[in-house]
């Protein structure tokens, strides 16, 4: 995406140019450059939350759109995610120590039993963190007990399930049934996602929301969490 020459110093750029450059470098999957850009903004006394939102999440949104439109493919998206991780690594400790609580609450997420695909789940987790959630990642191959235990322990605002196989997506229905049986559905929102899913399937199993991609999922989860906070 970047068409500028390589021989310039990031520190020579003004704030606006630097944010754009970080977005470009993130798009190009350049870990070191993103790290350096974030460092410079921090040194210029930028708020960590603004760096996260403007430079990193802003950059990842473009990546997500281009992935959806078939311009970027999985390997490139993974490189971008790696670069975003670098930047987040710098910001996370600062955000955690921040005096103002910007947290939207907890989001428990995991890939369902029988499935070990986790790229999409990890991307969603990253965007949720960027949006202000504390993400509890249960990893892969989760039986219903894992979700139940995590809900007990963390009292999330949203719980998310991911599945990439047509053979494992029905298991989401099993988890939802169990939550229904235990009368737990009013306590939090349940979001589902994964390439083979669609809105129709999410409706059929009774999920609260279907997340088509990471950026959209983060927006949906945020607006739900805000509405809960407002109550």
């Amino acid at each position, binding site marked *: 995406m970047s068409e500028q020459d390589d021989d310039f110093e990031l520190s020579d750029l003004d704030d606006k140019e630097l944010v754009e450059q970080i977005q470009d470098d993130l798009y190009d999957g350049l870990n070191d450059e993103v790290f350096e850009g974030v460092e410079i903004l921090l040194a210029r006394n930028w708020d960590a939350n603004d760096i996260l939102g403007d430079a990193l999440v802003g950059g990842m949104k473009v990546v997500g759109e281009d992935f959806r439109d078939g311009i970027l493919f999985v390997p490139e998206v993974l490189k971008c995610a790696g670069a975003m991780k670098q930047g987040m690594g710098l910001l996370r400790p600062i955000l955690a120590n921040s005096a103002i609580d910007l947290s939207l609450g907890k989001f428990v997420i995991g890939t369902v039993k029988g499935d*070990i695909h986790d790229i999409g789940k990890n991307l969603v987790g990253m965007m949720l963190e960027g949006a202000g959630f504390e993400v509890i990642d249960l990893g892969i191959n989760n039986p219903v007990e894992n979700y139940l235990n995590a809900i007990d322990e963390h009292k999330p605002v949203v719980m998310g399930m991911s599945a990439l196989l047509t*053979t494992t997506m029905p298991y989401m229905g099993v988890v939802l049934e169990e939550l229904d049986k235990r009368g737990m559905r009013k306590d939090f929102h349940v979001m589902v996602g994964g390439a083979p899913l669609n809105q129709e399937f999410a409706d059929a199993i009774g999920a609260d929301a279907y997340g088509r991609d990471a950026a959209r999922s983060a927006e949906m989860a945020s607006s739900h969490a805000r509405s809960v906070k407002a109550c």
Partner: protein
Amino acid sequence: MQIKSVTFTSRPDLSAANKFSTAGNAQQGNVHQCKSQEEKSQKKLVLGCGALVYELVELIKHNPLVNQVVDLHCLPATLHNTPQLIAGEVDKFLSEKGADYAEVLVAYGDCGTAGALDTVLAKHQATRLPGAHCYEFFAGSQQYDDFMEAELGSFFLTDFLVKFFDRLVIEGLGLDRYPELKDVYFKHYTQLIYIAQTNDADLQEKAKQCAQKLGLEYRYRFVGLDGLRPVTKPIMQPSAFSNIESAFSNIEVNYV
């Protein structure tokens, strides 16, 4: 090298047809006339995934028909990585060509289309292979489940994937450009299982190297071609015809 599309059209050649007629009965003329009408009405289509082309050609080649025409057409194997396009591509092909055939047999599993392929097939009154994907129908559902039960971190290769490993797996996942992504993709995997369609020492050797490249333990299981029977059985004929292989000599494979 990547298979773009394969059009394999079988035409009963004259010598084969003559063999059949003379071996038949005295009313040769009638038999011929009847047959040409039947040929058209009984023409069948096998529409398959490019990843199955060798196996489909092999099976059809060994079981040719004389009195009817079978066309085999394969869509690009690379659709595997973009399953959201599979149903649309199948629909496009069948909308153009499907009506020419008495029966359409589709050599795909669900392949991650989550029912979208089945909706298209219902529209065209076509049938497909049972199962979620080729690893399941080649190994058989029971054996596949057993593999997964024993070790969920199993990655499967078929003959086709072994042959085109570099193109479809290494390049397909971008590992040629970004070798460091190997761990991102395969961190939860421990073994590679080569479920073989043929007993081929060279392919087994290559599959071992594939496992090494991915840093996975190597396992081998011969599973053969039985998984394709639901598609190939309806086009098989009594063994009387099985010696007429020349009828299926017209195979065209396009590479890009």
